[in-house]
Structures are given as structure tokens and as C-alpha cells.
């Protein structure tokens, strides 16, 4: 059930015209936009998510037991609901967006910022989930020794936890990146679709499907090959992250 659709996709690819189809300006700009915006989203998730995962792993108080489910909620949210939520907050008439618009004349929808923001919103929870569980699985003895040696919390995080949790963090990064590059519905609702600015790879596949199925297949297979490549390149890290 997993392999068959992937193989079927490969059989439909117009190999002979693949390069010409992919070098169409709209395809090129969509692929480029998707790659850099999803990487940026994953980087932001990394910078914010790793400390958050650490904080959640280290504390067992009430705050963290409330914070944790909130941070992870976007994992379950359907993209359409996520899109609506982002509009409700940052749309031109949104809770925050209205003040920003009135003050600066700038609104986030229909900008590349919105694409990246959506990527962080839907992707970061995966990073937090994986990094927290990795931090929790670190051997207690090392931490105890560090505490006895009066290492500060930050030193413990920086010198011991971070290096040991490398695999988990890498896996979390990949998952959040994958979620960001694959996002479709929320991006469309919140960011719209404009070649070069907000029209992502997934959007281009959807749009191409309506008029030119061959181009849709061509765009899809590159995405598939990229996914396969990433999964194989990181198979060791992913295995380690889920090893308890």
C-alpha cells in the first residue's frame, strides 16, 4: 500500500520531456520557492523548537503539561483549519494582523513570509515532539554527574544534551522540513498562489493537473526522488532517533 502508488507514479512520468517541462519558468520558480522557504521554516523551527523541546523534557510541572499538548496540536489540525487559524490571527482583519496593517500598511497574506510562517506553524510541532522524546531518553547518570559537578543548566544542554541528541534533532528537522515542503491547503488559504512569490511546488502540481497532467507527473517525480534521497541519506539518524 505504500510502495505501489510510488511505483505507479514512476510509470507515468514523461521521461523524454521531463527536463523541458521542469525548466518552464513557473515550474522552476515554484521548485526554488518551495525548497528555500521550507528549509528556512525548518531552520526557524530548529532554533525555536530545540530549546522548547529541552524545556519540556526537563520540567514536569503543570505549565509543561499544558504547554505540551498546545504545541503539538497543529500535528492533528487539518491544513484547511490551520489556514483559517492563520488568517484569523494574521489576516488583514485578523486578531493581530489588523493592528499590524493599520500601523504599517503591510499584511502577511499573499507574501512569501506567509509561506514560511505556515511552514513553521505546521512543521515545528514535529521537531518539538521528536527532540523532547530524545532528550528524555538520554542516560540519567550523565546528567546527574554533570549536576554534581555543578554544571549549569545551559552547560548541560549545550555540552551534553545537544551532542547526544543529534540524531533526534536531525530527524525532527527533517520531519518539520518535510511537513513544510508538503503543505498545500493552509498555504493556499493563507498565502494564496502567485508564481515566484507564493506559488509553491505542491500548488504547481495541483494547478498543472487541471490542464497538463504530464507536467504534474514531472513535478511530482522530482518531489518523489527528493523524498527517497533524503530518507536514504538519513536512514541511520532516523533509526537511532527511534531507538530507545
Amino acid at each position, binding site marked *: 500500500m505504500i510502495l505501489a502508488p510510488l511505483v505507479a507514479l514512476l510509470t507515468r512520468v514523461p521521461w523524454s520531456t521531463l527536463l523541458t517541462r521542469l525548466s518552464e519558468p513557473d515550474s522552476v520558480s515554484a521548485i526554488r520557492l518551495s525548497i528555500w522557504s521550507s528549509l528556512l521554516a525548518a531552520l526557524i523551527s530548529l532554533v525555536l523548537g530545540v530549546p522548547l523541546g529541552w524545556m519540556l523534557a526537563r520540567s514536569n510541572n503543570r505549565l509543561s503539561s499544558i504547554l505540551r499538548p498546545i504545541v503539538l496540536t497543529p500535528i492533528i489540525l487539518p491544513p484547511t483549519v490551520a489556514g483559517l487559524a492563520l*488568517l484569523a490571527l494574521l*489576516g*488583514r*482583519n485578523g486578531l493581530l494582523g489588523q493592528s499590524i496593517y493599520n500601523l504599517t*500598511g503591510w*499584511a502577511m*497574506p*499573499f507574501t512569501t513570509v506567509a509561506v514560511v510562517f505556515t511552514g513553521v506553524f505546521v512543521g515545528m510541532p514535529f521537531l518539538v515532539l521528536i527532540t523532547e522524546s530524545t532528550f528524555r531518553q538520554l542516560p540519567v547518570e550523565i546528567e546527574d554527574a554533570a549536576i554534581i559537578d555543578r554544571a549549569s543548566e545551559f552547560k548541560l544542554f549545550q555540552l551534553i544534551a545537544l551532542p547526544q541528541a543529534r540524531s533526534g534533532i536531525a530527524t525532527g528537522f527533517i520531519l518539520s522540513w518535510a511537513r513544510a515542503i508538503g503543505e498545500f491547503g493552509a498555504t*493556499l*488559504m493563507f*498565502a*494564496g*498562489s*502567485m*508564481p515566484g*512569490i*507564493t*506559488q509553491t511546488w505542491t*500548488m504547481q502540481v*495541483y*494547478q498543472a*493537473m*487541471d*490542464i497538463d*497532467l504530464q507536467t504534474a507527473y514531472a513535478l511530482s517525480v522530482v518531489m518523489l526522488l527528493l523524498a527517497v534521497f533524503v530518507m536514504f541519506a538519513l536512514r541511520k539518524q532516523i533509526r537511532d532517533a527511534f531507538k530507545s
Partner: protein
Amino acid sequence: MNKLPLLLSLVLVGALTSMPASRTAQQITITVFAASSLADTYKELAQSFSKSHKNWRIAFSFQASSTLATQLNAGAPADLFVSASKVEMAQAKSRVGRPLNYVSNRVVVAFKTGGSVKSFADLNKSGVIWIQCAHEVPCGQAADSALKSKGIVTSKPVSYEPKVSSAVAKLVSGEVDAAIIYHTDVLANSKTLSELAFSNPKSALTQYQIGLVSKSKNAALTKIFLNFLLSKSSMQVMKEHGFEISK
């Protein structure tokens, strides 16, 4: 012998799953693939149809015509296809044998009444943002040709929406200042929206087509619903919603 419980449970499951089917045996379901611009009007028409056809259920899928045509070509089970332009009907010609010219509609520049846009030239102002439909869908094709013939608008939209209903939603919710949508959409939101018509009406026009999907299991019954849609009273409802009746 120990297979008996399994056998019994299989029989039970079979009996349970076949029950609803037998109970609803008389219910008739017609699946209609219709351009998203028809959603409001068709829901109203279906309601009046069901008053005289108690056991009928009209299941609608409202999407961009191009999306529906792609789904039909992929074998989607539908009984009736209503496309917002001839292009998409032709795209689905392997599934829809003999389509009829139906109604027509035209795109307009729609804006919030009392907002910052009042003329075509206002679209070019900095700070004014507007959207249109994607080139792939009928409302986008009509917008492209209307804008080209008008020639005043030099700015670009901030987004090419995948179907007209999502462009309407973004205008109504105030995310954009203007949108090129159908005249019928403006009428449906006449409390908040106003419109500017393109001076060359032909360039903004799109011809809707309607046709029975070939090899539909419900062909005879679908014809009844099709005749209802083409009836004088239904066409009057279409007219009230702003559609133009083709000659």
C-alpha cells in the same frame, strides 16, 4: 469446528452491512459535478426539486470546472457535468457525449462597497491588492481576456486563486481590496460588494455547458433532473441569480 464463530460473525457483518442498503433501496442519488460558481443557485434549485421528488438526493461536487474535468477523465463517478466554459467541457469529452450550451456569466471587478477601489484605475494604486482566478480555470480565462481588452489595469494580482469561490471568500473577508469574480458572485453578496463591468462585455463572458456523463447508471433518472434544470422556472431562478440565458 472452531471456525464456526468466525463464520457466524461474517454472516452477522454481512447482514448488518446489507441492512442500510435494503432500507434505502428506493432512494435515488444523482451525482452532479458543477462549476463552483453555481453552488448557491444549485443548492436553492435542488431544494425546490426535492419538494416534488421526496426520495431523491442530489449530491453536488462544486469545484473549478477544470478540476472536475480532470476528475471525470480519471473515471470519477458522476451523472451530470456542468462546466463554466466550453474549454473544460471539451477537456472531458471522452466522458460527456453531447453537451448543451447552458447559461453564460461574466467576470467583473468586484470590491467592497465603500472601500478603497472605485474605478479600474484604482487597481493600479500602490497599497491596493487584488486577486483573480488561475489561468487554468474558467473565471481566470475570462479575467485574462477581459483585462487584455480593457488595457487600463497595469498592476498584477497578488494571487491566482484555484477556483472562483476562494477568490470570493478572500474578498468578502477583507483580505484583498478587489477581485475579478463573476457578476453572479457579486449579486449573491450584494449587501457588501459592488462591481465594475468591463466595457467590452464579450471579452468577459464565459459560456456554461451542461451534459450527461456517458455510461452513467442513472442516465434515465439524471435526464429528469436535467430537464428540471432546463425548465422555464429553473431558468428563471438562474436569471434572478444573475446568469444570462443563452440563445
